[in-house]
């Protein structure tokens, strides 16, 4: 019995210690915020599409910069922007451009930022590997398939030489940046799409879907096609295949999609670790990006991005 009582006492004591910590903690957290700047924390949040690239850069950056603390979250482009536009994060990963509303909030909070293109993704239009009729598709044909209230029900509705079989469509869900970009580039209006297709936020589900259905057609990021080349076949768009070369040189239009990071100008100028990190990102993008399944920009394009920052200057 005594043991129970002592157990309880210990628990209650530990709680009161923690409660004590809480109030102390508030002061402390303010202190640590200041000292964190000196010891070098770099806070990044945003799109899960950009995450693999930024994470890879952070991984390499931490080697040789052990005293800096880089964290990368995956709140989504929108969620990341919410934190970025109030100055909470130093860098925001974005798979689309900043929205007007978001830019307005940033302005209200006196946050100035620079958009940097760090890599390219080629949205790949894929079919089953047993599909022996289609190799190429035009933008018009894609528009015909994906536009709202599309009349395309069978493969033969696209091209009369193709089989009279029902076409099964797979695509990312509406929360995805890939979805926004694809609808904008193909249908002409961001978010405009037919609704009778299988949607998933997890691209691996789309891969499984297309790989398991001879009459399927779907679209998703290049990395997911590249990893599943044995099960899938990518269609060329207006005769251009989605290869790293074609995507990197932006020949693969209109589906070569830029991947961005947004950098807080003030943090870039005044926090040496943020400047170090962003410079490292652009200087080493060429070698790091390909290992993540995305396509690196050309040398000159990285130079251009670096020049954007040079204009900011540093203190």
């Amino acid at each position, binding site marked *: 019995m005594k043991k129970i009582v002592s157990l309880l006492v210990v628990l209650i004591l530990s709680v009161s210690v923690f409660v004590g910590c809480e109030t102390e903690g508030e002061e402390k957290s303010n202190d640590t915020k200041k000292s964190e700047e000196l010891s070098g924390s770099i806070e990044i949040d945003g799109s899960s599409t950009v995450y693999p690239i930024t994470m890879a850069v952070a991984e390499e950056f931490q080697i040789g910069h052990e005293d800096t603390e880089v*964290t990368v979250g995956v709140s989504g482009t929108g969620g990341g922007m919410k934190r970025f536009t109030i100055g909470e994060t130093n860098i925001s990963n974005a798979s689309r451009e900043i929205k007007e509303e978001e830019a307005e909030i940033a302005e209200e909070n006196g946050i100035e930022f620079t958009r940097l293109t760090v890599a390219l993704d080629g949205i790949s239009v894929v079919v089953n590997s047993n599909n022996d009729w289609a190799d190429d598709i035009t933008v018009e044909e894609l528009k015909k398939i994906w536009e709202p209230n599309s009349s395309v029900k069978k493969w033969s509705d696209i091209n009369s030489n193709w089989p009279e079989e029902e076409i099964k469509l797979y695509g990312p869900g509406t929360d995805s940046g890939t979805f926004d970009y694809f609808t904008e580039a193909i249908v002409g209006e961001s978010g405009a799409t037919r609704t009778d297709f299988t949607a998933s936020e997890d691209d691996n589900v789309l891969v499984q879907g297309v790989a398991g259905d001879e009459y399927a057609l779907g679209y998703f990021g290049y990395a997911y096609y590249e*990893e599943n080349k044995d099960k899938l076949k990518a269609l060329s768009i207006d005769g251009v295949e989605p290869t790293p070369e074609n995507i990197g040189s932006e020949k693969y239009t209109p589906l070569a999609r830029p991947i961005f990071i947004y950098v807080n100008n003030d943090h870039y100028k005044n926090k040496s670790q943020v400047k170090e990190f962003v410079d490292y990102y652009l200087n080493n993008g060429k070698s790091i990006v390909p290992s993540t399944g995305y396509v690196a920009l050309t040398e000159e394009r990285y130079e251009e991005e670096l020049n954007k920052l040079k204009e900011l200057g540093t203190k």
Partner: protein
Amino acid sequence: MSNVKKRKLIDKGFHILVFLTTLFGLLILSILLFDILKDGLKWINIEFFTNFTSRFAEKAGIRAPLFGSIWIITITMIFAFPIGVGSALYLEEYSDDKKILTKIIKLNISNLAGVPSIVFGILGLGIFVNFLGFGRSILSGALTLTLLILPIIIVSSQEAIKSVPKELRHGAYALGATKWQVVKGVVLPYSLPGILTGSILAIARALGETAPLIIIGAVTFIAFIPESIFDKFTTLPMQVYNWSTMPQTEFHDLAAGAIIILLILLLGANAVAIILRNKYQNRIK
């Protein structure tokens, strides 16, 4: 005679039916375990524990999420256990059941147990992260999970306390014991095994949660180990989710590896609770 035979047949039939339903659950569990072990076991080695996550599957490890999960679960239990058991004791021993207020509290606690976890995440973001200014720290995460599992602990503790035989209480009162003495000497020791069982379920739930932690801003890439409750963190389920959405299949196997560790952690926590439970159960007998 035939009537007896028929009744016995039905009896046997029912026996087989319930046996099959039990088997169904076990079958699914063993398929799941087999699948995970097959994919994940080959990835578990020393480096898997000592490395941080990486873009190369063979270099990736679970050091940060493992420590994050242990931190989170420890702090959560420190908050949730005393508050939960305390509330249950008040509701069962001290409050007046006929009062409307007590009824409202009890109803609300049962309702809270059914609230989706993401709602607690939004609450945690509002209160702990922004209003109280704890930031996106272990403390905010643990407090959010505390809110999430409190109803489970309270309800199960209430059930355990209710199961204490009236005779024991009355006996103690007859000897002139005060309410506190009855709680301390009779109610708690008798109900502790039940309370611990409820807590096991609660730990399991908290350990597996992802949604509320994503909302309050637990990070995914972190290459240092948290040193205080104000540090940023990531947890095993978040790492599992992240790896399973990667395009490379090796990461899916890596996710299975992390799931194995998560299961072991869970079994470990359960084992501690079961040992404690048996210890107190034996003492009562």
